[in-house]
C-alpha cells in the first residue's frame, strides 16, 4: 500500500526501503512518458474535440494544445501540455517544453471560454517552460505572468488537473483553477528536484533529497492545501490504463463543473481569488513563532494514507473562509 501510494508500480522496480527512494520512484512514475497526455485524455473523455491553433501573434506552440470539447453533453475548453509518447513526437512537441506562444494561445482560447460561457479544463504535465533563449527573449516570463493573471480573474469555472509533472512557473501558467486536481502519481514543485539540488546542495545528485524536502507528491501537495483532490490511478499507474484514467478524471471534472457552474460568476471569481490570496503560511512576529514543523517520514505517510481516498470538497465552502494566519 505504501508502495502504491508512492507510485512504485512499474515492473522491475526495486521496492526501496529508503523513503527517499520511494519518493524518487514516485517522481519517475510522474515522468513516465507513456502516461496519457492532454490529447490522449481529451480523446478518451470527449465526444468531440476541435483543436484550435496559434497565438495570433507569432506562432503555434505544439507543446501546448487547446481546443473545444463536448464532454458528456457539456461544452468545455480544454488546454494542456503535450509531451510526445515517442522520440519523434517528442521532437515535434519540443519535449513538451512550451514557448511563450503556447501560453498566449491558451489565453486566446480562454478568452473564447469566457465569452461563450464554456468552463475551462487544463491538463498540467510539464517539466517547466522551455529554458532556451528563444523562449526567454520572446517573453516566457511575461506570458506566464499574464496567463496566471488571466486565469485568476477569468469569469468561467476552471478545473486544473495535474496529470504528471507540475513543474514550476511553466506548470502554474495553466494551473490556476477553482479546483486543483492531481492524479495520484503526479508531482508538483516550485522547481525541479534536480534544479533544487543543484542550487541548495550544489550538486544535482541530491535530487532525491530535494524531491523529499519539497514534498512534491500529489498526496503531500494535498496535505499542504495546494491540491484539492487526488484521483487514484488504475492498475499499475495511469499509463497502464489510460481509458480508465480518463474516465476517473472525467467523473471528477464533471462533478466539479456541476458544482462550480451553479455558483454565480461574481462569487466564483471572488472565491478563486480568495483561494489563492490566502495561500502560504506566515506568522506575526510579536506572537511567538511556532516551532518549525519537522514532519518525519512516518507522519508523512500517515498523512498520505489519511488523505488518499480523497473526496471532492466544495470550493466556496472550504476555500471561502481564509484559514487562520498560523494554520500551518
Amino acid at each position, binding site marked *: 500500500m505504501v508502495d502504491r501510494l508512492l507510485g512504485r508500480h512499474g515492473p522491475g522496480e526495486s521496492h526501496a526501503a529508503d523513503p527517499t527512494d520511494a519518493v524518487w520512484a514516485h517522481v519517475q512514475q510522474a515522468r513516465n512518458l507513456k502516461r496519457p497526455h492532454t490529447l490522449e485524455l481529451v480523446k478518451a473523455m470527449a465526444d468531440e474535440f476541435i483543436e484550435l491553433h496559434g497565438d495570433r501573434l507569432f506562432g503555434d506552440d505544439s507543446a501546448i494544445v487547446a481546443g473545444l470539447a463536448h464532454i458528456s453533453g457539456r461544452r468545455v475548453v480544454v488546454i494542456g501540455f503535450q509531451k510526445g509518447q515517442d522520440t519523434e513526437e517528442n521532437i515535434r512537441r519540443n519535449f513538451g517544453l512550451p514557448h511563450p506562444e503556447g501560453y498566449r494561445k491558451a489565453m486566446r482560447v480562454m478568452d473564447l471560454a469566457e465569452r461563450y460561457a464554456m468552463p475551462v479544463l487544463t491538463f498540467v504535465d510539464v517539466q517547466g517552460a*522551455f529554458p532556451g533563449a528563444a523562449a526567454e527573449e520572446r517573453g516566457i516570463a511575461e506570458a506566464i505572468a499574464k496567463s496566471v493573471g*488571466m486565469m485568476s*480573474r477569468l469569469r468561467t469555472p476552471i478545473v486544473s488537473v495535474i496529470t504528471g509533472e507540475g513543474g514550476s512557473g511553466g506548470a*502554474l501558467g495553466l494551473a490556476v483553477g477553482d479546483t486543483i486536481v492531481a492524479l495520484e502519481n503526479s508531482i508538483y514543485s516550485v522547481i525541479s528536484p534536480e*534544479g*533544487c539540488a543543484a542550487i541548495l546542495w*550544489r550538486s544535482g545528485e541530491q535530487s532525491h533529497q530535494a524531491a523529499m*524536502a519539497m514534498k512534491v507528491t500529489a498526496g503531500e501537495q494535498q496535505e499542504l492545501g495546494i491540491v484539492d483532490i487526488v484521483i487514484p490511478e488504475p492498475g499499475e499507474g495511469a499509463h497502464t490504463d489510460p481509458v480508465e484514467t480518463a474516465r476517473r478524471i472525467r467523473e471528477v471534472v464533471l462533478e466539479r463543473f456541476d458544482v462550480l457552474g451553479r455558483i454565480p460568476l461574481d462569487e466564483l471569481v471572488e472565491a478563486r481569488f480568495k483561494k489563492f*490570496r490566502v495561500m502560504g503560511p506566515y506568522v506575526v*512576529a510579536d506572537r511567538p513563532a511556532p516551532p518549525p514543523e519537522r514532519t518525519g517520514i512516518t507522519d508523512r505517510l500517515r498523512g498520505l494514507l489519511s488523505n488518499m481516498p480523497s473526496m471532492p470538497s466544495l470550493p466556496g465552502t472550504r476555500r471561502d473562509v481564509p484559514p487562520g494566519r498560523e494554520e500551518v
Partner: protein
Amino acid sequence: MPVRLPFRPRRDAYPPDLWTKCPGCAEMLFNKQLDKTLRVCPHCSHHFRISAKARIEQLVDPGSFVERDADLTPVDALGFVDLKTYPDRLMAAQLATGLRDAAVWGLAAMAGKPISMCVMDFGFIGGSMGSVVGEKVARAGEAALAERIPLLIVSSSGGARMQEGTYSLMQLVKTMSVVERVKAARVPFISVMTDPTTGGVFASFAVVGDVNLAEPNALIRFAGDRVSAGTIGEELPPGYQRAEFWFSHGFVDRIVPRARLRDEIISLLGFLIAPLNGHSEPPTGPTSRSRSFLNALTGARSGDGNGDSRASETGQTRGEATNG
C-alpha cells in the same frame, strides 16, 4: 524560479570596511563617497545592489515612508532541510539584515503624492519570494486599490523561495491576482526591476507594470543561465538577459540610471492618475480620501500635480523604514 545563492555575497552591498572594489571597473571606491552617488560607481556607472531601506530613502519624500506589516515572519511549513535547515537560514538572514523577510512595504509620498510601495531586499536569502514576500506585495497592491493611489514595486530577487515549496510558487498567483485587480480598477502600477529580477518575480508582478522601468545592466531573467546554457547548450550572446536586452525585446519601457529614478517616477505619476471611480474621467486632484489618508499618515501636503512639494520630515523617521 529558484533562488540561486551564488549571487554576489551581501558583503559587497554592505561592506564593513571603508572601501569597496567596483566589480565593473575594479576601481577602489570610498564608501562614503559611494553612498553620495546612491551606490553607483562614478567611474563606470556600475549600479551596486542596495538594501530595501536605502532604496526607499532614495526614492520617496524624506520621512514620508510608513512601513506596514513589518512583523510578518516566515514559517518553516515544510520542515525543509538542505545543507542547513530553513529556520537557520532565516535566522542568519534576519540577523544580517534586521528584516524579518525579503520585502518591505508601506505608504509614502513622492513629490507630495501618496503611493503604496513594496521594495524587495536581495540581502535576505537572495530576495527570494516566499509567503511573506508574496503577502507584502499583495497587501501593497490592496492598499493601492483601496486608496486609489499608485502602486510602486521595486524588485530585486533571485526568484521563488525553494524552502517554502509550492507555497512560494503560489505567491505568483497571489501577487498577480491582486495586480489584476489593481489594473482592472485603473490604479497605476509602476514596476522597477533592479539587479537581479529573476524567476518567479520576473514571471509575475515585475513584468506587468503599466510602465516597466529597469536600472542599467540589471540582470533580468526567467530561466537561469545554467539552465539556458547548460541544459539546452545554446551560446548566449553578451548582454543576454540584461536590462538593455529586455528593452530591445520590448519588455522594459525605460532604462533609468539610479540618479534619475526618483524624478522619472514622479514624472510618470504626473500622467498615470487613477480616475476617481475607475471607469470615467480623471480626478482634478487627489481624492479626498487619499488626501486625508496622506495627511494622516505622513503629514505631507496633498499633491497638486506640480512636482516638488516634499513632505516634512516629521512624524516618522527614516530609520523606521526597515524597523517596523
